[in-house]
């Protein structure tokens, strides 16, 4: 763990005391520490239901049979794993800023993944730019941490953003939690991806990650602007007036993403890369109810 450059050991230790907060019960494939919509074995009573052939007769409530003269099954809340899907934007626009947005996104994804793995949750990683790239088979258990971190760190950064290409991998997700980490600055609309999260019954969040230099540009004068994703260029003269217009456009873009997320029942947070990962996780993401 100490050899991994993504997260410092001290940070990893602090992450062990944090857990993902799920609003509703989820149904996973394996036992875990999450309440599941499946009724299973656990100390926590959930409900009764009529017995049907094939049911585990060990769950028959004999006291109820004595009173009601029919077989009733005691249902318990099953503690199952949480399927966590991380969608990390590694397009060209993320390769910008100081600290670098892509690197920060990787570290944030690693932190969230570690929180999930330490709770025996299942983590599926997808990075995307022009198209989605799977991070491999789902990861589960702390022993997968090193492999997952190496995988995250190995993805290249670049290319344009196409959120519509995320619809297919999202729709294939089992109900669970999905977290989309992006700057939201691609030319394509982010709405299809957010809508797909809702349709896939994903509980989750959209985390917009920006660099402080793009929130408040600190330069004026003449320049040839080059788009980090498309390479398109345009001559430009920055004045206080044009800087204000840019800030307005950026704020409008952020507001649109936030509105779309909330409309679909997703959490939203705008993070800046100058905020330490520790603070992001323990403060900003707790504030929106993503972590506990």
């Amino acid at each position, binding site marked *: 763990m100490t050899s991994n450059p993504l997260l410092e050991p001290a940070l990893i230790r602090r992450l062990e005391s944090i857990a993902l907060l799920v609003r509703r019960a989820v149904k996973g494939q394996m036992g875990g520490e999450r309440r599941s919509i499946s009724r299973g074995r656990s100390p926590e009573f959930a409900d009764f239901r009529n017995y049907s052939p094939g049911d585990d007769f060990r769950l028959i409530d004999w006291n109820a049979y004595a009173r009601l003269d029919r077989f009733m099954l005691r249902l318990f809340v099953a503690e199952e794993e949480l399927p966590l899907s991380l969608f990390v934007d590694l397009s060209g*626009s*993320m390769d*910008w*800023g100081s600290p670098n*947005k892509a690197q920060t996104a990787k570290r944030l994804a690693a932190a969230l993944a570690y929180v999930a793995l330490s709770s025996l949750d299942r983590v599926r990683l997808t990075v995307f730019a022009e198209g989605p790239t799977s991070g491999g088979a789902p990861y589960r258990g702390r022993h997968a941490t090193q492999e997952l971190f190496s995988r995250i760190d190995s993805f290249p950064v670049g290319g344009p953003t196409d959120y519509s290409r995320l619809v297919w991998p999202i729709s294939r997700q089992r109900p669970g939690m999905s977290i989309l980490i992006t*700057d939201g*600055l*691609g*030319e394509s609309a982010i709405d299809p991806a957010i809508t797909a999260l809702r349709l896939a019954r994903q509980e989750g969040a959209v985390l917009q990650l920006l*660099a402080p230099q*793009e929130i408040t540009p600190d*330069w004026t004068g*003449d*320049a*040839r*602007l*080059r*788009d*980090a*994703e*498309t390479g*398109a*260029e*345009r*001559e*430009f*003269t*920055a*004045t*206080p*007036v*044009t800087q204000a*217009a*840019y800030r307005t*456009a*950026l704020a409008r*873009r952020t507001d649109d993403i936030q509105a779309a997320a909330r409309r679909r029942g997703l959490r939203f947070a705008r993070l800046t890369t100058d905020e330490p990962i520790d603070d992001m996780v323990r403060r900003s993401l707790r504030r929106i109810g993503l972590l506990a």
Partner: protein
Amino acid sequence: MRFLAPAAAALAVTLPVILALYFLRIRRPTRVVPALHLWPDAIRDRQANVPWQRLRFSWLLLLQLLVAAFLVAAAVQPALPASASVAAHTIVLLDASASMQARDVQPSRLDEARRQAGALVDQLGPQDRMTLIAVEATPRIVTSTVGDHAAMHRALDGVTATNGEADLSAALVLAAGAVRPGEDARAYLFSDGIAMPLRASFTTGLPFTVEYRRIGVSGENVALTSLVVRTSAQSRAAYVRVQNFGRQPRTVTLDWRSDAGLIDVRPLTLAGGQAQDVVLPVPDGATTVTAHIDTKDFFSLDDSAIAIARVPRAFRVLLVTPGNVFLEQALRLRPDFQLDVIAPTAYRGAGAYALTVFDRYSPGALPDAPFVMVDPPAGSPLAGGAPIGIGRVRASDAGDPLLNNVSLQDVHVARSEDLTSSSFGRALVTSVQTPLVLVRDQPFRQALFGFDIHESDFPLRIGFPILVQNLSEWMLPPTVPASSFHPGEPVTVVPEAGATSVAVVRPDGSRRPLPLGSIATFGDTDQVGVYTVEQTVAGRLDRSWFAVNLFSDATSQLSPIDNLTLPPAQLVGVAVAPHQGFLQIWPLIAILALVLVLAEWLAFHRGL
């Protein structure tokens, strides 16, 4: 439309230059941004270092081209034909007298006159001549140019108000001299009409018509019109006269100060047109006393008056005579004369006497100082020819100030030396037979009587002591003048015997040296206030003072004259060709250019 400065059209080269600058491209550093589509489409070329790009529309370019075009249009000075015609030669008579300092029109009458004259300047065509004459106590031609509007405006701005009166007659004579025979000329008098009475007899009329433009609206003014310090046997007192020249009753406060501080404050209420005399104490040891009224009216020059409170310095005067009670009494009338009377045999020279009167006696060597020689005996260098009988006595020049208040009627002289061939000086009193009294200015002021006082009834007339007073004051002006002088009035300064330097310090502190060795006339008295005469005698600095005050009822009577009587025009042989003036519109264009500059500034800052 005509263009008064067509050569300025060359400035239009700035338009293609501006356009060319927009063709040039600037070398811009590349900046990678995460989302180009969020940046507004704003581009402005401000630097050119890479040649040629496609011209893009820019509001800045449009505005800059318009600004340049308007400035060029203003520079060529377009002019429209004016509704009023102007003459080929326009004479501007600009009143710069004291009354033009009045502020009944803002900011002042002179400024208003300058403004109106400036509007006239703007109507002149390129071939029109304009002559500007400042109408002051001594009128002067300020400038005379052809078609140079800027020079005329500068000359107008350079005219400042004086503290003297306006000598309109002299100004008209100057103007007439500036007009060539047969020239189409017209004069414009910008004045409040308060001027010295026309004295020149323009019998042949003026070679131009004079159009009077009245300046000023109000005559409301309270003034100090007199301040005199009198010394009597009992006390010294000052007599101040305050007059309300307006129609409305006014209440003023009179401050009375000496150079040591405030002495008295008196409130005065004056009905319209009323004058009031106030007697005020003069403290011992005071050098000057000042009266000031707080009027808050339109004219401040007559709100203060100053007088010299010093006791005059005494002059030692020697009368050498075998006996002449008339001369002796007449000389004793001067309070500042210490008169010594000696017989001719006792005369040992003029010595320290400032004035010597020789009666029927002539010393071997005449003093280098003021003297009066009466009936020099034969053998004297000043003696005339054989005595001749005298008929009627008359003044050589009735306007001579030395004969002020001196009546020569019923004056008879039995006989007098024949001074016809005398080279002593100019005749003051004369007769058909011979001049009777001669005076001269150089090297010192001196007088020569050709007749014995006793052989005339002149000493029995009131005119005799007055003539002696006039002569003595001419030769030895009192160190403290009895009254103040008017602005511009010449003042006679008599240097002390043995003075090594003489200078006059004006109220503003400027120092004007005077020539030594003779009586000097100091005429640089245009400022009101106290003038100090400083003389160095034997290493000691000796000071005397005189005051200059406005004290002019004609000026303080501030009401502008509605109808000023001016000499008629006698236009002989003047070919008045139809001549149209011009109305210059370049100031309007320049203002539009200024507005466009502001718009360009706004456009730049709004990133258009």
